[in-house]
């Protein structure tokens, strides 16, 4: 689906990513994991086609016209407009004709009661749900989530994770960034471990304790300690 070969990204004379290789197949669930400044968001943007790599090659193989869904870290919604307006707009823009899918999504994410509310009237958690909903409204082949669970309470997180598991089970590929082990344990992804622009290891969820992080920074090691000490 997406193949990365020797991807490097340079900004202001500094390499944010260095020689990244990887392959994402249909139906995969992958988390880009690492401390702040590891290059996760930059790599995700390159995967989504939002940034061009300074060096290396990104090859994609998609079947749909709109294959990518992107949920940014920010609440990428028009303030002052209702939830219904936002959903309709993205539905129209992506030519999503399946109202069944949209209705199921609204039900599963618990958006029914807030359809007529404006974005600036919603709680942080509800905004995150709408942010996710408009990112997947066109049933993309691959979904990128950049810290989509920040500031979300457990009940909201439960709804979002349940929906993402459902999409993944239906064949949607998911690539996400998070620092939250709860999210990782619920989605059970493969982990691409990044540190200071380098890819240290790629491991399956059940092999996390054996990940090669010896050459990683202290910050990265502490992130693993948090989970393994449980």
């Amino acid at each position, binding site marked *: 689906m997406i193949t990365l070969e020797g991807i490097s990204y340079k900004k202001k004379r500094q390499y944010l990513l260095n020689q990244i290789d990887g392959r994402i197949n249909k139906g995969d669930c992958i988390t880009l994991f690492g401390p702040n400044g590891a290059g996760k968001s930059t790599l995700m943007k390159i995967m989504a086609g939002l940034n061009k790599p300074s060096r290396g090659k990104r090859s994609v193989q998609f079947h749909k016209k709109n294959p990518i*869904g992107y949920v940014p870290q920010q609440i990428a919604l*028009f303030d002052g407009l209702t939830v219904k307006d936002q959903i309709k707009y993205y539905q129209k823009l992506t030519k999503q004709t399946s109202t069944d899918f949209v209705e199921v999504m609204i039900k599963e994410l618990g958006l029914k009661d807030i359809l007529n509310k404006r974005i600036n009237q919603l709680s942080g958690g509800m905004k995150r749900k709408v942010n996710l909903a408009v990112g997947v409204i066109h049933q993309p082949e691959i979904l990128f989530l950049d810290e989509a669970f920040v500031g979300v309470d457990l009940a909201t997180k439960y709804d979002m994770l349940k929906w993402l598991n459902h999409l993944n089970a239906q064949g949607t590929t998911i690539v996400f960034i998070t620092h939250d082990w709860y999210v990782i344990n619920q989605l059970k992804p493969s982990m691409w471990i990044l540190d200071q622009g380098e890819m240290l290891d790629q491991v399956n969820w059940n092999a996390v304790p054996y990940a090669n992080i010896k050459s990683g920074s202290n910050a990265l090691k502490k992130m693993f300690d948090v989970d393994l000490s449980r």
Partner: protein
Amino acid sequence: MIVLKALLKQRITFILLLLIPILLGLIWVNYFQDTVDDLKVPVVLVDPYNQTITDELLSEIEVDDTFNLTRTSEIPLKALERGEVEAIFVLPENLKELIMWSDLEGQIKWYRNDRSLFDGLFKEQLASSIMTRAVRAEAANVVQNYDSEENWEEMFEFGLRYFEPEPIFQMNFQQISSDMSENDSSDQYYLMRWLTWLYLMIVSSFFTKMMLEWKEQHISGRLKVISKTNSLRTSWLLLTGLIIGTLGLILVISIQWVFLSQVYLLSLLVDIGIILVSVFGYLLLTFIINKKETLWALTLGYGMTSSVVFFLLFFQILNHSWWTKLFLPSWILL
């Protein structure tokens, strides 16, 4: 559609697009009206007896815009002393009868102060109106002396058809006043065009701020993934251009109509041109800058520098040069 909604659902959009032009319009109309009133000669006509003949005389004189005429029943001598009134004319009792018997010598009292200059014109107009009636009444009296069966009122009316005296002074003052007002309104015309540009630049920067917010919130990034055509920026440009272009067109036509009483195509094209170039400039900024603070700094910097250049050219302290044309309002003065 959603972009239009997002633009218009902001309270500040309404303040900028509707309230400010209405408020400025009202202030300007009020100022213009006050200026016009100030140019009129304030004269008071006093009729302590509220006679109907006074109404008839006033209906003839009030047609002339030279005077700011007030009718009272008491003599406002204090206002005359303060200079608020140029002159006071006091009509006598039984004015109709006095006109009929042509007994008018010294009957009308004329109060004026040392600074009174133009009240003489009103005196002549008032005298002309009264004398017209007096002469017609005298003519009717003479005819009736020859033939007592003739109807006096009929002969008075008959005289009106052939006797149309003009006021003694045609008032060169009127012409001078007109020239002064032309220069004054010409300056105001250029200032209003500059003000329109400044106002529309503020509106454009507000819309640009919204575009930068969408960019900052990654809405444009999210849309770029879905639609390769950058639909958000295209919609923004179309709507901003349409809203500001329409608003600009209405304002520029109104200004031309008020100051020049007609529409000049070349000036219209220049004004609309600089407005649309400003919008295009803001579009380019949305590609280059990311922070709202940078936008405000650039808007303030360019707006102020352009205004300074405009006024230096306006007061002929500076001459037009290639570099002055980089500041869009300078095109107004070409």
